[in-house]
C-alpha cells in the first residue's frame, strides 16, 4: 500500500532526521512504528503525508508518487497529528465536514454521522471545540481524518497523554477500522501498545529503521524465556551432572536460572530432563517462576546492542 524507498531527510539546520529509510506497508495491516522520542517517527509520517519535503528518496502510495502525483496519493490518506490543534470556535460537525470538503469530496451527512457515532462524538456534534476535553479533541482529529473515507490512516502517537480507559477505546476504534479494510500506521513509544495492536512492528532509532518484523515473529525471535528455580539449600557450585543445561547460579546460590529460547527448547535440554537431573543430585526445588521477555526488553536490548560499538 505504501512504499518508502531510500528516504532521507536533513533539516535546514543540518540535522539528519531520517537516514535512508526503506519501508513497505501492506494493505490492510496495522503497522506500528516504534521508537523513542526524537527517533524520527513524526518526520517520517510528515514526509509521507506531504508536510515535510524529502531530501532524497521517494514515497509511493498505492503506486502514486507522493510528489509528482500528490493529488492521487494524498486523497487516499488520513492523518491524525501528534499535537492537538486549537481552533476554538468551530463546532465538531463543521470542522469534520470541512475536512471532507477540503479533500474534494461532496457533502455526505450520513457518512459524517456514522464517523461521529463510531467515535462517540455524536452527542457533541454541536459543541464548539473549546468546550471539549483533550481526549474528545483527539477523537475529533480522528473524525476529521476519517471524514473523507481514507484507505490509509496515520495515527501519530494516538494515545500519548490519554488515560487508560480512553486508550482501550481508541484501540477498539482502530481495530474496527482495520476490519473495514483501512490500512493503519501508528507511531508510539509505548511498547505495550505496539505489542497489543500491531500486526507488524518497525523499530526506528535515530532516523534509521533498525528492524521490521511480524509482531509474533519478533517476540519469538528475540524473546528469551527464563525459568528461575529457588532451591532449599544454597549451592556453592553447580553439580557436574547439571552442566548440560546451561544453568547459572543466582542469588548467592539460592537460585538457579535456566534460560532457553525457541531453538534450545527443541535441543537436548528439556525442563523435564532438568527436573529429573535435579532430583537425581538431591537438589530440592522450593519454588519456581518463568519470565518471557516482552517487546520492552527486546526494545531495550536492541537499542543497547546498537549503541555499543
Amino acid at each position, binding site marked *: 500500500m505504501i512504499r518508502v524507498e531510500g528516504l532521507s531527510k536533513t*533539516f*535546514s539546520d543540518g540535522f539528519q532526521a531520517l537516514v535512508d529509510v526503506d519501508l513497505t506497508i501492506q494493505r490492510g495491516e496495522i503497522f506500528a512504528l516504534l521508537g523513542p522520542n526524537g527517533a524520527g517517527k513524526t518526520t517520517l509520517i510528515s514526509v509521507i*503525508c*506531504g*508536510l*515535510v*519535503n524529502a531530501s532524497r528518496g521517494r514515497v509511493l502510495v498505492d503506486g502514486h508518487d507522493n510528489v509528482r502525483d*500528490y*493529488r*492521487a*496519493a*494524498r*486523497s487516499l*490518506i488520513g*492523518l491524525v*497529528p501528534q*499535537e*492537538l*490543534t*486549537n*481552533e476554538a*470556535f468551530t463546532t465538531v460537525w*463543521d470542522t469534520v465536514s*470541512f*475536512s471532507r*470538503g*477540503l*479533500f*474534494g*469530496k*461532496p457533502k455526505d451527512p450520513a457518512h459524517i454521522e456514522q464517523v461521529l457515532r463510531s467515535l462517540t462524538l455524536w452527542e457533541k456534534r454541536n459543541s464548539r471545540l473549546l468546550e471539549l476535553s483533550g481526549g474528545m479533541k483527539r477523537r475529533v482529529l480522528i473524525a*476529521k481524518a476519517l471524514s473523507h473515507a481514507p484507505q490509509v490512516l496515520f495515527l501519530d502517537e494516538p494515545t500519548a497523554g490519554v488515560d487508560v480507559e480512553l486508550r482501550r477505546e481508541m484501540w477498539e476504534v482502530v481495530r474496527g477500522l482495520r476490519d473495514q479494510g483501512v490500512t493503519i500506521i501508528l507511531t508510539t513509544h509505548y511498547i505495550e501498545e505496539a505489542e497489543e495492536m500491531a500486526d507488524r512492528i518497525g523499530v526506528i532509532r535515530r532516523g534509521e529503521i533498525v528492524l521490521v518484523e511480524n509482531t509474533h515473529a519478533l517476540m519469538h525471535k528475540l524473546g528469551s524465556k527464563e525459568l528461575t528455580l529457588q532451591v532449599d539449600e544454597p549451592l556453592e557450585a553447580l553439580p557436574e551432572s547439571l552442566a548440560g543445561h546451561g544453568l547459572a547460579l543466582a542469588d548467592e546460590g539460592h537460585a538457579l536460572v535456566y534460560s532457553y529460547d525457541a531453538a534450545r527448547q527443541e535441543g537436548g535440554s528439556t525442563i523435564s530432563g532438568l527436573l529429573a537431573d535435579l532430583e537425581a543430585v538431591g537438589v530440592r526445588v522450593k519454588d519456581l517462576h518463568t519470565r518471557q521477555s516482552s517487546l520492552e526488553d527486546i526494545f531495550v536490548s536492541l537499542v543497547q546492542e546498537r549503541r555499543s560499538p
Partner: protein
Amino acid sequence: MKRLNLQSVKTLYLAEMARSMRTILQSIVSPVISTSLYFVVFGAAIGTRISEVDGISYGAFIVPGLIMLMLLTQSVSNASFGIFFPRFSGSIYEILSAPMSYVEVVVGYVGAAATKSLILGVIVLVTARLFVPYSIDHPLMMAVFLVLTAVTFSLLGFIIGIWADGFEKLQLVPLLVITPLTFLGGTFYSIDMLPPFWQAVTLANPVVYLVSGFRWSFYGISDVSPLVSLGMILLFLSVALAMVGWIFKSGYRLKP
C-alpha cells in the same frame, strides 16, 4: 495535472468567509464608524478651509482615498490573519496534506480575504454617500481598480501571514507600512498641493498610483495617468504572485 479541484477551493473559501462572518458586526461597525469620523474631522473641519480640490468639493475628493485606505488595511489584515491563524493553531497540517494545489490554497484564502474587504469597501462607499454627494464617471474601471487592489493587497497580507512568527509581526507591517503609506499617498490631498521635491518623493509611494487611478474612475481627475496607475497595480500584482509562488515552491515557513 488535473483540473482545478473546485470542491476543495469552495470548502476553504466558505470556511474562511464563515470565520469572517463570526465577527461580522465588528468588521462592519468599525469601518463605518471610522469613515464617519474621517468625514467629520477631515471633511467638515478641513473642508471648510479647503473648499475645492481640482474643482471637486473636498468631501467628495477624499471619498476614493478613504475607500482605498479601508481596502488596503482590511485586505492585508484579513489575509494575513487568515493564513497565520492555522499556522498558529496547528491546523495548517490539514491544508498541506489535502490533495490541493498551491493555486487552490491561495485562491481559497486570498479570495475570501479579498471578498471581505470588497464588501467593506462597498459599505464605506455607501456610508460616504450619507455625508457627501459624489459621482462615478467610470464605474467599470472603478470596479477593476477595486478588485485588483483587493486581490493584490490580500496577496501581500497572505505573504505577511506566512512570514510572521508572532502576533506582533502580524500587526507591525500594517501599522508601520500600510497605514503611513496610505496617509502619505494622496488620500486626503492632491499631490500637486505639495512642494515639487515632495511631489517627486511621493511618486515612490505605490499607494499614490492606486489612489490616483481610483479617484480618476470617480471624477476623471488624477495625479498620474490612469494607465500608469493600472500598469503599476498590475506590476504589484505580478510581484505579489511571484512571491507567493516562491513561498510554495521553496516551502518557506510552511514545509521544512
